[in-house]
């Protein structure tokens, strides 16, 4: 037998099931769940990911190093629902907390399951082991780096605060802004192709000739006729996104408002991106997220089948749908969390870390809103009252009619403005 050493670069010997045959397989990628040091090679200070330069920067001496990664976009590796993955997703979720070890001061830190990377609260060191799930596929493989910088976003927040007549005028200047906290949020993306056979009663308008006994002549009319039809469709769902954070932790309405994220900017995961950042691991397990995505796919399939009928009149539809080539990814997406105080109250803001799209709570100047809505409702009423007097004197009812119509319109507008203000208080 030949000497196998160094004969197949990149391969390692694995157990063989047959005597006389040596088997070599590709060397698996090294597990990244190791301690990494983020000390500056120039001054020994702590390195952090710098959004402006998209690299590792030392806040003390200005040292800058690029992050070793690669742009993968939508071609990023995805995973299938293998029995192994599905089982691992269920089992690993059962562990609640994990111990992390600080390599700098030796502190043992107990972190909730949610934490992927952390800084040591005792010494501030970033040299903390990454806590990653045992199953590689359940670790983030790709992420979308921050591309919107806090410096660029701050004026945008001020501008946002100043917008809208129903908010306090002093908001822009008096709001006490917190700093923007960058957070990587977990998302599941799902792709699948579906083939669906549908059967339904479809209504089609047909022209019918009939005898009109009153006009004593033959006339035509449109009649809706129902008949059973069937058909089939195929469709590929690409990268449906499901948020992996519990709604108790983050306001999902606000989160939905700052989407979409452009996944063509995905890069291969590197722990460098997480240094100095807050990272949230998934709280919604894979299987639950997949069920959410499937709900969306079902609704879309139903809509596509209805479209396939070629009619807007469809009833008693039944669908037989099968999935194929189901794929999923676990990705980290960038988000800035911020807040501000105003008049003794605290308000939340979220910003898309890629596009800078903003959503948040804003106080409403209810005094202003009430005044305006009352004015809109009362002025036409006043006009109607004058119109009534004019009619009594001159018999001309024109102003009364105009006033009455304007009053109705004013009430509708007032109610609409009021509900808009209510909504704006929750999310702007």
């Amino acid at each position, binding site marked *: *037998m*030949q000497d*196998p050493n160094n*004969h*197949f670069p990149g*391969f390692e010997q*694995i157990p*063989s*099931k*047959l005597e*006389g*045959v*040596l*088997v*070599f*397989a*590709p060397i698996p990628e090294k597990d990244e769940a190791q301690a990494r040091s983020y000390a500056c090679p120039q001054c020994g200070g702590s390195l952090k990911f710098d959004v402006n330069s998209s690299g590792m920067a030392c806040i003390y001496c200005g040292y800058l190093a690029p992050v070793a990664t690669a742009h993968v976009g939508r071609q990023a590796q995805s995973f*299938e*629902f*293998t*029995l*192994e993955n*599905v089982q691992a997703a269920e089992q690993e979720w059962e562990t609640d907390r994990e111990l992390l070890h600080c390599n700098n001061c030796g502190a043992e830190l107990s972190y909730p399951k949610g934490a992927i990377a952390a800084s040591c609260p005792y010494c501030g060191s970033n040299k903390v082991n990454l806590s990653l799930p045992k199953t590689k596929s359940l670790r983030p493989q790709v992420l979308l780096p921050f591309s919107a910088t806090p410096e660029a976003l701050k004026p945008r927040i001020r501008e946002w605060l100043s917008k809208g007549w129903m908010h306090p005028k002093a908001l822009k200047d008096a709001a006490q802004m917190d700093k923007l906290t960058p957070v990587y949020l977990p998302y599941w993306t799902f792709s699948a192709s579906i083939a669906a056979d549908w059967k339904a009663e479809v209504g089609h308008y047909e022209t019918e000739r009939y005898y009109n006994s009153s006009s004593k002549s033959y006339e035509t009319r449109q009649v809706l006729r129902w008949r059973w039809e069937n058909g089939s469709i195929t469709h590929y769902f690409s990268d449906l996104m499901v948020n992996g954070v519990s709604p108790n932790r983050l306001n999902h309405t606000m989160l939905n408002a700052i989407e979409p994220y452009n996944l063509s900017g995905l890069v291969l995961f590197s722990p460098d991106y997480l240094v100095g950042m807050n990272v949230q691991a998934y709280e919604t397990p894979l299987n639950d997220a997949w069920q959410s995505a*499937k709900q969306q796919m*079902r609704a879309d399939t*139903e809509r596509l089948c209805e479209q396939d009928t070629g009619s807007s009149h469809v009833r*008693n*539809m*039944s*669908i*037989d*749908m*099968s*999935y*194929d080539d*189901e794929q999923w990814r676990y990705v980290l997406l960038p988000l800035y969390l911020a807040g501000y105080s105003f008049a003794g109250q605290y308000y939340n803001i979220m910003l898309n870390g890629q596009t800078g799209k903003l959503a948040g709570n804003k106080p409403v100047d209810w005094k202003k809103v009430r005044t305006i809505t009352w004015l809109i409702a009362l002025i036409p009423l006043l006009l109607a009252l004058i119109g009534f007097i004019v009619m009594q004197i001159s018999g001309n009812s024109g102003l009364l009619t105009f006033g009455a119509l304007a009053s109705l319109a004013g009430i509708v507008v007032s109610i609409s403005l009021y509900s808009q203000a209510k909504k704006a208080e929750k999310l702007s």
Partner: protein
Amino acid sequence: MTEHTVNTPDPFLTQTCPACARNYFVPAHWHNVACPICQKAMLVPATQTRKMPSVELIVKPSLDKATIDAQLARFCKGSAFPFPDFKPENLSQRLVLVNWPIWLTDGDLKGAWDARFGYDYQVESSREQMGNAGWSSQKVIKTRVKDEPRKGFIERHYDNVLSPALHNHQERLSQIGSYQLNQASPGKAEDIATGLTQIGTIAPSELEDFVKQELSKWAAQDCRLASDAQHIRNFTFNGDYNNLRWTQALLPMLASYYTDDKGTRHVVTINGQNGAVYGQRMASVKKAGLITGILLAVAIILVLILYFAEVDFFICSSVLLILAFIPLIRAASWNNKEKNKRPPA
């Protein structure tokens, strides 16, 4: 031509057929043997005496007489206008055992290999149905194949790689079917002495590349098993094939014949293991012509009777005359079909 007669068991003689050039080892006590496969000439001593290669395995004929007779009866049944000689008992009486050769190669394989193997794995999918009660989901487990590269070394010995010893090996197998070599037993002289042994037409030197390919195929399956994979593709072997050793296995075939109206012999062959019969079942044109003649005579007499009976006979007589030719047409088309079959290989 006369048939062989059995005298005393002696060593084999090398004989050849002057008509088809097939060579045989004939037991020395057999005389005046006709070529069992072409039946066109008597075997004559070969110009060059050959030594019988080492016979490692022999598949003995495993059919009893009753089975052979039943097979021959089935073969003869339903033949159109058979020759008087085309009878199962005649065929059975003239059966001669012909052992025909196949090469067995043993060899060692040593070297590096490279392949892509497929590993089965299961994924969870679903099938969903929407009706009046909303959506219902059903879990479906699908099997998929994961493709992975593997490399390695192999050093193994292989026995009995099969390769043809006759140029018409494949044709013969397609005519009488394949053999189960696991029923073979070690070769003994007395087994060979009960029949003729056909001499191979392909020398081992011509088969070396073929055998290496076969060995490589065997090695590919072993590498797949060693890697615990279910599928294999793009297997390449880079190494040596050593100690190639060539022996033969003999397979049993029974050959017989029937004669036609002109005295020409038509060969029928039987797989000595599974009983499959092959041969051209020619129709006797002479017999068909005789029937046609009789029918024509009858038709003419009928036409005359109808003529004198002053019956309007035109259509009737035409039909009778056409019917009279059917046997001849049937025999000609039957023979045409049978001639499309190649003679026993």
